[in-house]
């Protein structure tokens, strides 16, 4: 099953199960079914709760907060995650704050879905990975689409938090298959984190969100073949608050080298937050500080050859890990 189908099926199952769930977004109704076709079929099944909105990201996110305030559930689709900037005020100053600023806990069940990332030639305002701008906001949890996490379970978990969540979806994942890794790697999921490993003790641990997991895995495969460097890849579904469950301590102890890969530009990133968590937990055991691997600084160009050179990819990950380990 493709990732897009899994996501679409999860949304359909949630709409069927939760009579008070709304889905709002630009051009989400049939026959268009959203810019990336993730909502295809949903408005036909649930015409009064799947609504195409005007081009009003700020207001629509506020509407979702109003629904949540009234006890309903809401999912907002932002057509391109870049435009979540227009919804930022509602998330930062209202939806997340409301959970606690009135002195008692107010449940706010809403998820803002954001297709993100480059690689499709959409240019500087339609290709960013804005996760880092949302990190560290109290009562705003961040999740990322991953080929290893079933979306129905992820959405159940987000709504169970009863606080606003942002769900980042790397566009390049939509057409990929769920769950697939090829031997000698195998995957298992525990505590919301997918672990892709070779079996034995690794030489390095790579932490990457769902959108760059395939690129990280491709680098680990070439590092294994060309350099005999064995890696374990950890793909968390929840990006923030970030936590590394105890079960992964053994990997970090064995490898003593940890890398974080993310598609965003450097500076104030999610990876820096992960590094902080890993440092606090494992400082004395690490051979060196956590290494962050990003895209180049600067805007994401439109032209394919320039975009390719800017975005983090298999070979930039490969060489960053090789140079760090081999010196």
């Amino acid at each position, binding site marked *: 099953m493709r990732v897009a189908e899994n996501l679409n099926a999860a949304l359909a199952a949630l709409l069927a199960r939760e009579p008070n769930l709304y889905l709002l977004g*630009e*051009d989400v109704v049939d*026959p*268009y079914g959203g*810019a990336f076709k993730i909502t295809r079929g949903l408005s036909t099944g649930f015409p009064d709760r799947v609504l*195409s*909105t*005007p*081009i*009003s990201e*700020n*207001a629509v996110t506020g509407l979702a907060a109003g629904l949540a305030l009234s006890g309903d559930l809401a999912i907002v689709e932002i057509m391109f995650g*870049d*435009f979540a900037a*227009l919804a930022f005020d509602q998330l930062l100053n209202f939806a997340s704050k409301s959970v606690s600023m009135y002195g008692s806990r107010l449940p706010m069940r809403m998820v803002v879905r954001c297709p993100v990332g480059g690689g*499709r*030639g*959409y*240019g*500087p*305002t*339609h290709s960013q990975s804005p996760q880092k701008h949302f990190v560290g906001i109290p009562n705003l949890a961040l999740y990322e689409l991953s080929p290893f996490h079933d979306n129905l379970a992820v959405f159940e978990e987000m709504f169970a938090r009863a606080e606003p969540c942002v769900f980042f979806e790397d566009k390049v994942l939509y057409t990929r298959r769920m769950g697939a890794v090829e031997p000698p790697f195998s995957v298992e999921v525990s505590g919301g984190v997918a672990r892709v490993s070779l079996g034995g003790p690794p030489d390095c641990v790579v932490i990457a969100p769902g959108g760059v997991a395939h690129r990280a895995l491709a680098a680990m495969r070439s590092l294994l073949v060309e350099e005999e460097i064995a890696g374990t890849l950890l793909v968390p579904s929840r990006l923030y608050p970030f936590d590394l469950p105890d079960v992964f301590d053994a990997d970090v102890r064995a490898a003593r080298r940890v890398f974080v890969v993310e598609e965003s530009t*450097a500076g104030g990133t999610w990876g820096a937050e992960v590094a902080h968590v890993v440092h606090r937990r494992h400082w004395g055991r690490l051979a060196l500080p956590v*290494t*962050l*691997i*990003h895209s*180049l*600084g*600067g*805007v994401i*160009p*439109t*032209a*394919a*050859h*320039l975009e390719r*050179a*800017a975005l983090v990819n298999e070979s*930039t990950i490969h060489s*960053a890990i090789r*140079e*760090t380990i081999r010196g």
Partner: protein
Amino acid sequence: MTRPVTAEPAVFPAEADGPDDADLSLMLMIRAFELKLLDLFGRGLLNGTTHTCLGQEYIPVAMEALLDPGDHVFSNHRGHGHYLARFRDPAGLLAEIMGREGAVCAGVGGSQHIRRDRFLSTGVQGESLPVAAGVALHLKRAEPGRLACVYIGDGTFGEGAVYEAFNIASLWALPLLVVVENNGIAQSTPTSRHLAGSIAGRAAAFGIDHHLVESSDVTEIRRTLDPLVSRVRSRSTPLVVEFVTRRLGPHSKGDDTRPAPAVQALREQDWYARCAAACSGRFPRLDAEARAHIDAVAAEVTARGPSRWEGTRWEGP
């Protein structure tokens, strides 16, 4: 075409038998350019996305004659016609869209992020209105008589920034010319499903003059708009000009969910059909010339090497 900043009444001869050769050729060139883009996409020769202005070509052609090169133009995602009417540079634009040498913005911006002289486009809806108002504030003091012209679609009236800009432009009497290309649809959503009230009513709410243009006759359009645009300059006051127009192509590429008969009905109202009938003598020749020109541009640009840009460096790890 350079127009004096002091408002002399211009002479726009009647369009008895269609637009003059220069206007018609420009409209046909824009049409040929957009068709070529869809063709290149269809053949897998273009990367990314693009939004063609098929059906709307006459709007920037009519408007440019009312603008001075010193005026600023803010364009949007559907901006190829705006650019071509201003610069007549299909090679530079195609190179930008294809990421080839000679690209206007080194291939970084692509179809919807272009800056050249006093022309600028960007891809986030509504964002450019306040920016254009800021430029108008600058012009009002630094270059009185000049204006900032901003193109927006009907769907973009969903964005709050539009109204914040309207309010300030009216309050501060800014020379802001808002050209609304109301093509009846935003991506897949018909105007009736995204816009309550009317664009005229929204302008009126802020005390901004509004003029509705239903014609696609560039000469007639200019004749009506010329005094209104002159007033934006001489009185420094905002104006909304709303064109009732038609989007003949998909929103971007291959994503048109409108029923074929509805699109066919729009085609029948298209300026192209009207001009083909009105200028039957010269139309086929000018159309063939425009297509041949664009074919040659496309062949030449496609053969160029990739654009070069030194904008970012690998800084890590």
